[in-house]
């Protein structure tokens, strides 16, 4: 299994956000997307998730039956961006069990909450939680449904150091079991075996297909 992007270009309005971005992420490895604000890190994540149709190029998941076009790819992805997709009126367990039943089976809810360091908060309404706690419940969402590709955008922004470390452990475990992670972040996730993709916001930048602005450098 391999997540492959080929000469991706995405437009927003009249503006081309990036152009000619290529990458290949095999199972068990992470791609860390770096770059200054406005360079299109979030846009790239959204394009992989299928929310933004690419103006050129394509993303696909090789070695996965029926995963050719963007919308089928999305079925194998988890998406964790700035919003936590939690309903404050529902309890934490209600939130997670809904996503589990809607998206597919995975880890038990109580076990997932334990993994993010929030055991026993299942029957508290999500609206009562702090920003960091909500974030950790959102991370638990990635666990309650098993999907191979995790697309995460600034996953640790609201987390303290201890929780950030816990998230890095979760990511490592996911990679260890053959998963793929694409992370857009400023912060160091502490992933040793990560590939890096540096975006810069020079519009019309044309990197060479297998290097340049879209470096996929294995450590």
């Amino acid at each position: 299994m391999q997540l492959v992007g080929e000469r991706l270009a995405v437009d927003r309005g009249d503006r081309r956000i990036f152009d000619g971005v290529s990458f290949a992420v095999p199972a068990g490895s992470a791609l860390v997307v770096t770059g200054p604000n406005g360079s299109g890190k979030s846009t790239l994540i959204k394009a992989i998730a299928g929310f933004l149709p690419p103006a050129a190029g394509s993303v696909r998941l090789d070695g996965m039956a029926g995963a050719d076009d963007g919308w089928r790819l999305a079925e194998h992805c988890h998406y964790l961006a700035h919003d936590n997709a939690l309903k404050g009126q529902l309890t934490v367990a209600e939130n997670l069990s809904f996503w589990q039943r809607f998206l597919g089976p995975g880890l038990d809810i109580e076990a997932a909450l334990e993994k993010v360091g929030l055991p026993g908060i299942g029957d508290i309404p999500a609206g009562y939680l702090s920003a960091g706690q909500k974030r950790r419940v959102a991370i638990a969402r990635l666990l309650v449904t098993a999907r191979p590709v995790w697309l995460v955008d600034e996953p640790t922004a609201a987390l303290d150091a201890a929780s950030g470390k816990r998230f890095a452990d979760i990511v490592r475990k996911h990679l260890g079991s053959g998963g793929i992670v694409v992370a857009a972040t400023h912060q160091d996730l502490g992933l040793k075996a990560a590939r890096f993709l540096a975006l810069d916001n020079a519009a019309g930048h044309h990197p060479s297909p297998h290097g340049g602005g879209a470096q996929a450098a294995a450590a």
Partner: protein
Amino acid sequence: MAELTAKAGSIWDFANPARFMGIANAVLPGLAAVTVACLAIGLWMAFNAPEDYQQGSSVLIMFIHVPSAWLSMMAYTVMALAALGTLVWRHPLADVSLRAAAPIGAAFTFLALITGSLWGKPMWGTWWVWDARLTSVLVLFIIYLGIIALARAIEEPSVAARALAIVTLVGYVNIPIIKFSVDWWNTLHQPASVSRLGRPAMDAAFLYPLMVMALAYTLIFLTLHLMNMRNEILRRRLRSMRMLAAREAGGA
């Protein structure tokens, strides 16, 4: 209202909800027993009242209808007083009292409307007429429901308290105006085909059971109000306990 059952001067003791809970728990069993007894006596007297020569046995509805209508207004008065308590004295229990009284008042108003409708069907030949009195009770019912909807819409109790108090007071001031305008509206448009409910001078045989029923209804209101206030306090306690639990769970 709890304040009414307390000795004067000790009102501020009730500011402490824990204290209120203690008193409510102590008072409620006795109060409930007296209520049931009073209601039983009232019903017995009502069923033994003579039949009206015009209305037959349907006059029995009156013993439910009239006290319900009275209580619908009394409950709103209690709410208006509680609203003053919230706005002027910022009494922590005033908001609890307002919230607790609203559904009970709405229930009494609903009962008054339903029984009035049942009573009116044989007399007017229709379930509902847009008579001034009926219409203003219907408007009161809508105001009740509006207050309940507002209470449900705002989750944070301290934010809701002010909004509820203001709406309740504006409603209270507006009710006489509505009543007045509806009276005026109806005298202009009332078609002659609809007979008005006559006002017979009431015989003692009807009056005494009615009085007992009114007392029983007032006691029902007091009992339910105290119980509902207790529930509301418990609900808030549960809420703050859950928030505390959330704060303590796994750090920030």
